[in-house]
């Protein structure tokens, strides 16, 4: 099967005694944006290094773009891969333009496209002429993204791409990622800023201590996690007891600040509960439905993992 951009089968990576990656299976399809989440040291970066061929697996098999990324003949594969490492560093004495030229030459990408790349990631012409040593974190990250996009990659690894970026920059960052994904590029995003991944990722992979503990779309993970949905109602405090008596079982009320009461219920009961509140509940000023966030689901999967 060559339909997958990357295939990881039963891969384990040991560094001496410690196991950084343990028996991970993972497939990445074209045009898919996959978010990999996990604590520091959960094995995210180790897995990326394995897929880049920087390290070789202790057990298992990896195929990237139809070949072994660590083999001697991997150059054609690597030309089609973009990588933005965590804590990216450049040679401080080279200018932005020289840096990108250097990487473009190494990758065999035409240097004529560099100006367009600079513009795409939002680096000003004045900044390009300056030495990288004078760059701010945000500018360095833009340059890092520019080098990752060299040569139009089919597979893009972004390791903690948005740490240290301001919100506006994050948005333009994800706009670029979405654009690439729509063009058929596979994007693997690593982050622990979970909230910003919502809406960006087609699929979420949760890693913990080297193991893959969950893999699926946000909706799949939600139903797997069976976390309660919370319904927040703004209403007069006097009516709360009345409400609980009427909408009844399965909904545990909690009083929040500002005259808000929160009811937690299972996802399947959500619609029924809302109907009961609307039809025969007391007068409600406002109603808000809060889905479990990625943060909560992540915490849930880790708890489940710890319990096993």
């Amino acid at each position, binding site marked *: 099967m060559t339909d997958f951009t990357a295939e990881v089968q039963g891969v384990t990576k040991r560094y001496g005694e410690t196991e950084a990656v343990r028996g991970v299976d993972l497939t990445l399809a074209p045009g898919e944006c996959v978010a990999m989440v996990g604590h520091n040291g959960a094995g995210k970066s180790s897995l990326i290094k394995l897929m880049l061929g920087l390290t070789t697996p202790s057990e298992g098999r990896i195929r990237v773009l139809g070949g072994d990324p660590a083999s001697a003949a991997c150059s054609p594969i690597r030309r089609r891969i973009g990588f933005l490492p965590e804590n990216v560093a450049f040679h401080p004495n*080279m200018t932005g333009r020289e840096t990108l030229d250097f990487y473009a030459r190494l990758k065999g990408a035409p240097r004529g496209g560099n100006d367009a790349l600079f513009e795409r990631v939002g680096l000003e012409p004045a900044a390009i002429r300056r030495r990288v040593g004078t760059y701010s974190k945000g500018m360095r990250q833009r340059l890092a993204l520019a080098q990752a996009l060299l040569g139009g990659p089919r597979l893009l690894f972004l390791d903690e791409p948005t740490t240290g970026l301001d919100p506006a920059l994050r948005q333009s960052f994800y706009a670029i990622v979405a654009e690439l994904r729509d063009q058929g590029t596979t994007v693997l995003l690593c982050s622990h800023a979970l909230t910003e991944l919502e809406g960006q990722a087609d699929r979420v992979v949760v890693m913990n201590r080297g193991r893959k503990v969950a893999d699926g779309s946000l909706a799949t993970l939600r139903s797997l996690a069976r976390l309660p949905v919370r319904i927040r109602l703004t209403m007069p405090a006097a009516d709360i007891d009345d409400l609980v008596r009427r909408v009844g079982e399965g909904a545990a009320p909690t009083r929040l600040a500002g005259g808000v009461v929160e009811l937690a219920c299972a996802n399947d009961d959500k619609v029924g509960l809302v109907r009961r509140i609307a039809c025969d509940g007391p007068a409600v000023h406002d109603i808000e439905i809060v889905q479990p966030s990625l943060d909560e689901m992540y915490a849930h999967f880790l708890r489940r993992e710890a319990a096993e």
Partner: protein
Amino acid sequence: MNTLLIIAGKELREATRNRWVVATTLLMGALALTLSFLGSAPTGTVGVGPVEVTIVSLSSLTIFLLPLIALLLSFDAVVGEIDRGTMTLLLSYPVARWQLLLGKFLGHAAVIALATVVGYGAAGLTMAMGDTPIGPESWRAFAAMIGSSVMLGAAFTALGYLASTLVRDRGTAAGIAVAVWLCFVLLYDMALLGLLVAGSGIGVEALNWLLLANPADAYRLFNLTGFKGVSSFAGTAGLAAHVQLPAPMLLAVMAAWVAAPLALAAALFSRKQI
């Protein structure tokens, strides 16, 4: 081939930027000029020209200085890039590890070559403009000294690369580099001398081999015994008669001291888990 040049070019450009090239060239030039002026002073009836005097004093100083510069330039080459995080990105590019190592080495060797040729060449130029006529034999000796100095620098650059790939920590790599310099440049000759003085009865044959086991000694022998005019002044004419090591062999030894550490470093580097 192209990849090697790209990496070497970047390394050279960077060394130019952070003033390594300028600093070493100025240092070598100042050293060579000072010694050549001293050498131009009347040398009495010994019957040697200013070039020979300069070669003897300059090569003796080169032995101490050039390995130090080469090691300082190279000990950080691999371990430093891993430390700063630039290595991970570089290795994700379509570049073989040996290409990366060799390319960087070529860049650093070019820095040494540039500094040596320009610095020592300036001294040669001032001597050529002096009043004393200088024969072609002297010029050959001077050119040979510049060439072998570049090789000496390359050999110690290669040793620095080996130190840099061997360890995971910059401090340790720096320590190894200093130790390499101390051992090969200072302690080795002292130990050899001690061995001779103690009269342990090692033969000429064994001494020859021991001298070859050190690139600095090979360099010294090549410059001080290789040319007749030089050896008569250096007081090594007697030694030259005894040491049966022809110049091509000494050069081959120095070349081996470039290739062997570099090959070992490349082998270690390709197995390294970054």
